């Protein structure tokens, strides 16, 4: 008996009691606890850091593109150049050149002259043409006109080129810098709001390029996507959730939808290329085909969201409707669908936002073409905002970097508006049963 109860008052030096072991390990365990917590906070902080870095770097690169450089020239609308019978085809660039030569009379030699004329964008001639066509009375007068500067001048004014660098290392030479500095001294160079960016289509010249063409293309494509994917998505969700019997066939459909939601978007592009373009012979680069491809891509998203929304309508609503004699279809159409609609709309907006940002499948169906004109219909060649960003990001000119960032900001703004709309919709109409 003594043998077993002996360790009751064990010597302290031995210290084999569990509680002591535990107590001794506690600081280490608490440190591990703290460390683990820190990893968690660190992970979140890191991802938020990435997010803000991304936004800041894009906004920082993009905001100067909302302004561009203009040069004031005294243009003499020479009646000899602008003959009344051929106003539309007259040589307007000659007016610009003459004016530049008069501003800098000391410039001689073909090479220097070419450099001088290079200060002004080729868009200046179009501006003069529009002025003359709008008001032929200006012919014979000398007027100060603010014309668009070339993109290299623009970059120099915005400080992206180092004026002190060696001449061979910049796109603008010493003479040109001297002329620009003289124009600056005469207050003939100014940065103004870049309206072209919001009103023009694509262009090879950065100072003349705008996102309006791509925006219209995106809009047309999204209309097709919305018109097709919303009804089809809602209809299939209703069938699967309210009418479908539980059998192999509906299981197959379900598995299919879940898989399609995870198929890489570029595969949908391959489908569009093989089926819509090569088999059905639909036009290349058209918003119609883009919309069809994006419809197939967003359908799973909309179906899944719509089904979740239908599931959240309590069965008591259905039972009540059936109880007063409504048919199954009437129950769904008059009672279940209106209650589920806000959730479906939220899902659809999110699907549309994703379709707006999607570009990979559209590359496959030719929406990467260089298109200057603003598309006017669903079968006109067009491009969309994200693809425009991709195209500009590939262009070598420094000024396109700025445009790309600015276009990205516009695209993100659209996405934020759409997602905010989805959130508001959800907040306002969400019902807890």
């Amino acid at each position: 008996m003594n043998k077993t109860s002996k360790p009751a008052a064990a010597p302290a030096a031995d210290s084999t009691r569990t509680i002591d072991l535990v107590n001794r390990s506690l600081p280490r365990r608490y440190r591990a606890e703290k460390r683990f917590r820190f990893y968690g906070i660190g992970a979140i902080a890191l991802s938020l850091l990435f997010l803000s870095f991304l936004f800041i770097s894009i906004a920082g690169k993009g905001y100067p593109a909302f302004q561009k450089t203009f040069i004031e020239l005294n243009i003499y609308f020479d009646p000899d150049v602008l003959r009344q019978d051929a106003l539309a085809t007259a040589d307007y660039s000659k007016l610009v050149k003459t004016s530049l030569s008069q501003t800098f009379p000391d410039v001689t030699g073909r090479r220097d002259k070419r450099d001088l004329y290079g200060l002004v964008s080729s868009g200046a001639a179009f501006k003069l043409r529009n002025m003359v066509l709008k008001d032929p009375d200006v012919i014979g007068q000398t007027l100060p006109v603010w014309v668009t500067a070339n993109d290299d001048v623009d970059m120099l004014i915005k400080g992206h080129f180092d004026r002190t660098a060696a001449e061979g290392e910049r796109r603008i030479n010493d003479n040109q810098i001297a002329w620009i500095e003289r124009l600056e001294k005469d207050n003939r160079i100014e940065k103004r709001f870049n309206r072209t960016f919001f009103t023009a289509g694509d262009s090879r010249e950065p100072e003349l390029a705008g996102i309006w063409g791509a925006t219209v293309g995106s809009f047309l494509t999204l209309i097709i996507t919305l018109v097709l994917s919303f009804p089809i998505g809602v209809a299939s969700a209703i069938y699967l959730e309210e009418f479908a019997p539980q059998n192999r066939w509906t299981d197959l459909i379900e598995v299919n939808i879940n898989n399609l939601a995870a198929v890489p978007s570029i595969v949908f592009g391959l489908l569009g290329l093989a089926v819509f373009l090569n088999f059905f012979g639909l036009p290349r680069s058209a918003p119609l085909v883009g919309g069809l491809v994006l419809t197939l891509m967003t359908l799973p998203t909309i179906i899944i969201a719509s089904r979740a929304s239908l599931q959240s309508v309590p069965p008591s609503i259905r039972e009540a409707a059936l109880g007063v004699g409504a048919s199954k279809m009437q129950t769904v159409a008059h009672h279940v669908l209106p209650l589920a609609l806000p959730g479906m709309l939220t899902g659809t907006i999110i699907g549309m936002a994703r379709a707006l940002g999607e570009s990979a499948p559209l590359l496959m169906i030719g929406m990467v073409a260089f298109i200057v004109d603003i598309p006017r219909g669903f079968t006109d060649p067009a491009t969309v905002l994200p693809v425009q960003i991709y195209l500009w990001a590939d262009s070598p000119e420094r000024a396109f970097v700025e445009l790309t960032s600015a276009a990205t900001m516009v695209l993100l703004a659209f996405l934020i508006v759409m997602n905010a709309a989805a959130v508001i919709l959800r907040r306002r109409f969400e019902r807890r049963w």
Partner: protein
Amino acid sequence: MSPTTLLATLLALSSLAYFLGRRRALAVAGTPGKLKTLHSRPTYYGALTAIWCGIPALILFGFWLAFESNIITSLVVADLPENLRSLPPDRLNLILNDIKNLVSGNIVSGRIDPTMQAAADHYRQLLVISHAALAVVAITLAIAAALIVRFKITPKLRARNQVEKITTVILIFCSTIAIFTTIGIVLSVLYEAIRFFQKIPVWEFLFGLKWSPQMAIRADQVGSSGAFGSVPVFVGTLLISGIAMLVAVPIGLMSAIFLSEYADRRFRSTAKPLMEILAGIPTVVYGFFAALVVAPLIRDAGTFLGLDVSSESALAAGLVMGIMIIPFVSSISDDVINAVPQSLRDGAYSLGATKSETIKQVVIPAALPGIVGGILLAISRAIGETMIVVMAAGLAANLTVNPLSAVTTVTVQIVTLLVGDQEFDSPKTLAAFALGLLLFVITLILNIIALHVVRKYREQYE
């Protein structure tokens, strides 16, 4: 009449038919008090008329437009002069393309061949005839159908049952579109891939170590012989996806753990949406960010450390792709961790475990199948991601696992092979479809496994 106007006309006719049917139903019912003699409510008679007016005509409209261009093309080809018609198919396609360009007014060359101009005029004429015929047929069909239904309306007509039946058929049809999409993907990719494998043996494609899809145009051309071994392309894809997962899995998992186990309500409700913004940013923006900000940063850092970093390094693309996937991993892990029953945690706490020990030794092992499923989904996403790699990764297929060198991926190759001018039966173009098939199959297998695992896991705790 242009197709758009025709579509609008058909829709207008259909809504007109609704009122026609409803009025007819009211008329056959007699005075308003006798409405109850009707089998269905008057709106159903209207709906029935509208459906019969609209749907057959719209189906005709769809099929007509879908096959119109092919039929017209073959008619135009049949009418071309003999010397053009006997050209090999690829040349003939070029000529057809030129004709179509002429039709749509995109004049490509200054000098227009008179025969081409004639063909283009012929094409345009046929198009006008086709549209006119379509308009006549569709509108006649719509009006005739509406009138027939109108005359059939009697108080005994079971309009509601018929409308509901038709609606059910439409609902079923809509829900099968997902299946048709899958079939379409498989067939279209498989068809071209089989044509590719007739030219290039399958084993060479699957196990060849050299990828250089540029084919020699002339027989005596040196240098671009065309090699279609997909191994380097897949190694590149795996390298970039691997880097992405190295970034995304720890960060995503840790933030999910923190958000679901440690964070209070307020922190959670602000941090979670912020992290989800990362998922909503278009991939092209990430691609731009990778190519313009991250890649130069890594290259400069490499130069500073004395390393030779390619400006299209796999590291930059993988890193940014990882950032993109973080919210994906974290939201799935979050769901899965939340599904672990509280009783398991309480059990661990009652044994004296600290919070982190509970998480590490109880919650994570319990949630592991779900987390693995989520990671598999994320991998499939990384493999199929296109824009980031197109913009930030290279084109040359180097067989290497060095993250600082440039590699190429499956999606980059598909894009470069298919964007721009292409002839449709060269192995170069077909190779894109073979890659697409492989990509589809791999992601499909990953998805099926992942969805299965996640579903199994959910059932376990329900």
